[in-house]
């Protein structure tokens, strides 16, 4: 059974059809990269899987571990093991980063029948993960993403992912806005989570990311559909030749 299976997904946002019959199958242990032009529907796909309201599914199905995902609320999906690293992480003034993440972890642990972690245990855990991401401990005291630089926000998303240890990691342009050193650090953080039970879907515009996180598959999403899939070599070709090449290639 696939971890995630999307069949003929049609999604409309504010009455406008964005995803137009998208198919994707992701097995545990795999890393998939999704590339595609601006506005093609990549974020609509990831946000839709995470359960954002306002993304109306007009047709198709999405199965997570064989179960209908579309019946679940956003928080239920998170507790089931889905994590979305936002393209634009949200700032939440007045809510402490540490408190937020501890609450999230405990909500997920509760679902899994595990006991709550207390403040001390949590602090130890988060500090360990922060070290891995070379994040300054001052971020513990900051409010969620408030006043973070673009790169710091992305690193904070990965920190959350490392703490929550989801089964399915959807990373929407996590590499955008990262300098080359940060990219390496973030990539090694992501790689540290790679294992045979977990899958990753990376949305990116740059082949560079895939040098550090090697994908098993690369898909091209255009105009609401996956129009081409291949292995990691595909990313090089795309970088060189652009998306037009895929279309022509298909036509010939």
């Amino acid at each position, binding site marked *: 059974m696939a971890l995630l299976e999307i069949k003929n997904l049609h999604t409309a946002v504010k009455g406008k059809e964005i995803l137009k019959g998208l198919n994707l199958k992701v097995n545990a242990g795999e890393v998939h990269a999704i590339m595609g032009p601006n506005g093609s529907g990549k974020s609509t796909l990831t946000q839709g899987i995470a359960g954002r309201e306002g993304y109306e599914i007009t047709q198709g199905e999405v199965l997570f571990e064989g179960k209908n995902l579309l019946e679940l609320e956003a928080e239920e999906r998170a507790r089931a093991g889905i994590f979305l690293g*936002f393209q634009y992480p949200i700032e939440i003034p*007045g809510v402490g980063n540490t408190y937020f993440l501890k609450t999230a972890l405990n909500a997920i642990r509760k679902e899994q029948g595990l006991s709550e972690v207390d403040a001390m245990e949590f602090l130890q855990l988060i500090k360990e993960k922060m070290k891995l991401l070379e994040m300054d401990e001052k971020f*513990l005291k900051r409010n969620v993403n408030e006043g973070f630089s673009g790169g710091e926000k992305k690193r904070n998303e990965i920190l959350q992912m490392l703490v929550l240890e989801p089964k399915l990691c959807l990373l929407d342009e996590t590499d955008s806005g990262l300098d080359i050193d940060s990219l390496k650090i973030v990539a090694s953080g992501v790689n540290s989570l790679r294992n045979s039970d977990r899958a990753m879907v990376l949305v990116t515009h740059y082949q560079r990311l895939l040098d550090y996180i090697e994908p098993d598959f690369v898909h091209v999403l255009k105009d609401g559909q996956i129009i081409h899939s291949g292995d990691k070599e595909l990313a090089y070709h795309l970088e060189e030749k652009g998306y037009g090449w895929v279309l022509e290639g298909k036509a010939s």
Partner: protein
Amino acid sequence: MTEFYQKEFQKFQQGVQEAWLKPIQEKAFASFENMGFPTTQQEAWKYTSVKAIAEQNFILPNAGSASAASQNHDQAQALLENSFALVFINGIFQPQLSRCNDLPAGVTILPLSQAMIQDEKAVQQAFVKSSENKDAQEKAFVAWNQAFAQEGAWIHLKKNALLDRPLELIYFSLSNGHAQVAHPRNFIVLESGAKLQVIESYRGMAGENAYLNNSVTDFHVGENAQLKHYRVQEEAANAFHIASLNIVQERHSQVESHNIALGAAMARLELEARLQASGADCSLHGLYFTRDQQHIDNQTSIDHAVPHCTSREFYKGILDDASQAVFNGRILVRPDAQKTVSELSNRNLLLSKKAVINTKPLLEIFADDVKCAHGATTGRLDESQVFYLRSRGIDPQWARNLLTYAFAAESLESIELTVLQEKLKQVLLERLNLKESALLGESLAQ
């Protein structure tokens, strides 16, 4: 109304010992009678109806029953451990719960009833002055208070006197069988260079009959004096609270006034700060949080009468259920008040479709060389923030409560008195069913 209160007034006057006070109160009662209760026809009361007050006959509390019913009541205790405190129950002074011994030199803290004996001349002057004030002639509730005033706080800090610990004025009310009214009257004077932190707190327990607190507080803040004022209104859910707060500021005085309104079925605070000598600085902070059918009205006015004064005003409101709030913030810059710097903002968060806010920030500027800004916003919770929290597994109602808390707590951050800030945060957390207190990363990270 008239006949009932006429009788009440006659009864009341029989108990008044001070000959000088009688004519003042007679005059005030006549004004009150003349004006009657305000109606929504009057511009200043357009959005706040006092019909529920006008339709009832409120009796004056009876000393015996009030203290008997409420001795050792938890909520009537001082909030802080080491504060000075004057405690009143149903408007009646409670010496056994109060703490005003070992005062520093130059500081007087007395219940008004006591001050009338000990400090009679000064009290008389204060009453005469307030009866000449237009409020007593133009505002029915102020006149009503003046007519029946007999108890409250009498605070005087002489030149350079400093109260090293906060002072709490606690008005605890509980109804005991009748609709009751108390008319707290507070006179607070800081002579030049004096410093005071004062908490004015109104709490109560709901009984079968609603009670009304009709309070008037006057501050005079002398040259270079510093006042920090925290007003916390947590009246019982079915209570009425009408209050008038006047602040007069002299040269280079600094005033910070926090006004937190959480309780009462209907509450209104009219706050007026008059900056009448240059260099005066005034900060007003407000937070109101209404739910159910509550109605909370804040009327503020900062009067810049002279040049080189600064003021700022930040009010935040949260409205839930079918509650209503009114915010009327006026900044008046008179023709002479050049170089005024002033800003005013009112931000509202609506948690329910049925909640209604009427907000009107108003700049009236008659000088040309000034820097003034004002703005009001009304919005709902940011759904993208809610989604972000939910996408991490957090319960949606909890997420909403947390975001609401964050919105409210921000306005408490400026409260320097940390014990009070923490207490108020606890009140909000409880109201929002957020039990944990370690909301800020700080407390967890240390």
